[in-house]
């Protein structure tokens, strides 16, 4: 067989396979470091503050308006069938099963994920990651491990907040604005949602936490391994863009896969 053909085929398949291998090694190394001492409690708290606490406001805002839109749209759709009483159930199930975990993850990606990729990318470009290596400090443990722990703790809590505020938003639209009976709305919320829905939503948010943090940190960490001419500031900006785009796509793909198995 022609050697050039083999080289061409290798040139197409080897880089993506290498990249996938590198991604999972990065993830594995970061997760392994969670269980090695000394634990990095201080750093984890710092990142919970950044990923979790500082995201509360945008989660409240997006949760509220998502719930209000669902309430509005749901009411006008259901009223044509004379079943507007089901609004509470429709809003709460849509939020808890789907929109809560997905939109929370996308909002955190936009706010904290992009910052993670950019910060680690700048650390790479300014040789701070090399400096860690020369100081015998495991750079993956230093930059990635505390962030993944913080994300795993923050994502479900923020998702819960989004769900609660979203249900309240539906109540504002359906009951206060459109005059639906408040007791009926709340009764339907309580009766429709069962524990499996809540656990399913939390499970999704945990998976999204792992996916978003790994992609964003990975993109920043390897921002130097780019095409020619994509180093420095451009390399960091591209790493950030790729981190956000790939995280959002992966959130939606994972959401479909998990939903497929949970339904």
């Amino acid at each position: 067989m022609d050697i050039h053909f083999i080289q061409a085929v290798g040139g197409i398949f080897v880089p993506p396979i290498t990249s996938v291998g590198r991604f999972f090694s990065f993830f594995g190394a970061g997760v392994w470091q969670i269980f090695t001492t000394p634990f990095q409690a201080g750093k984890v708290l710092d990142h919970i503050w950044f990923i979790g606490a500082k995201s509360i406001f945008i989660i409240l805002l997006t949760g509220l308006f998502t719930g209000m839109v669902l309430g509005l749209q749901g009411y006008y759709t259901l009223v044509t069938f004379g079943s507007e009483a089901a609004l509470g159930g429709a809003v709460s199930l849509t939020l808890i099963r789907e929109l809560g975990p997905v939109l929370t993850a996308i909002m955190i990606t936009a706010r904290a994920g992009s910052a993670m990729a950019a910060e680690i990318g700048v650390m790479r470009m300014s040789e701070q990651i090399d400096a860690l290596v020369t100081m015998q400090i495991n750079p993956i443990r230093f930059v990635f491990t505390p962030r993944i722990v913080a994300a795993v703790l923050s994502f479900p809590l923020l998702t819960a907040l989004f769900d609660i505020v979203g249900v309240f938003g539906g109540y504002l639209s359906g009951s206060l604005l459109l005059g639906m009976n408040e007791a009926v709305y709340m009764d339907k919320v309580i009766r429709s949602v069962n524990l499996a829905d809540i656990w399913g939503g939390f499970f999704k948010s945990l998976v999204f936490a792992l996916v978003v943090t790994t992609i964003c940190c990975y993109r920043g960490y390897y921002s130097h391994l780019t095409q020619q001419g994509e180093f420095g500031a451009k390399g960091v900006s591209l790493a950030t863009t790729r981190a956000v785009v790939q995280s959002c796509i992966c959130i939606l793909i994972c959401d479909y896969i998990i939903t497929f198995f949970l339904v």
Partner: protein
Amino acid sequence: MHTAFIQFTEVRKKFGSLVVLNGVNLTINKGEITVIIGKSGTGKSVLLKHIVGLVQEDSGQLLIQGEPLNRLPRKKALQFQKSMSYMFQDNALFDFLTVFDNIALPLKETSRISPSILKEKVHTRMSQLSIEGIDHKYPSELSGGMRKRVALARALVTNPEVILFDEPTAGLDPVRKKNVHHMIREYQKKFGFTAVIVSHDIPEIFDLAQHIAFLDEGIIAFEGSKQEIMESDMKSVHGFIRGKDIRNE
């Protein structure tokens, strides 16, 4: 009598099609200050990064006290790596950490010493380098000279046996350059570490050097003392130290 501490034998390295090191042979003696000079982009930093393990050679060998680094037992290799510090050209200080935390970082992350001893060690280095009272400042709040001293304090805080300096005076004015050179000379005398310095400060850096290596076109074209390099009749050496490019003449 000096012993060969670090030795490059026929080390080659290329990035893609670009050959950077093309059979480098270099001996670095223990307790000496070795200065590596050469034009920009000739691979001086790459050479330095081989020692600290940031770059791996394609072929050839890097010997540590006569043993190949890549074949040293894990424990011994780790011990060697721990005995080294690297001072980066742009300092590589962590923007999100204060000066104190930057200097304390290698101790905090790699050893379990008590906070009081840690504080004492960091403050000792800070006072030796005249940067007291800036513990809570961030690198962005410091001048270029101060940042260099913070980077040097971080490099010295672990009491390393070897310190690698990658253009330690890049971007500094002549007065600060002189101060950094003085600082390196004084601390090398005081602590007796082995220093490898990549520099463009010619001829000032020669006053500091006990051993000088000239890297040109991927090889060490010249090795010797200050006097030997100044008296060298090699065209490339002669041209370089006098700021002339012989290929353009």
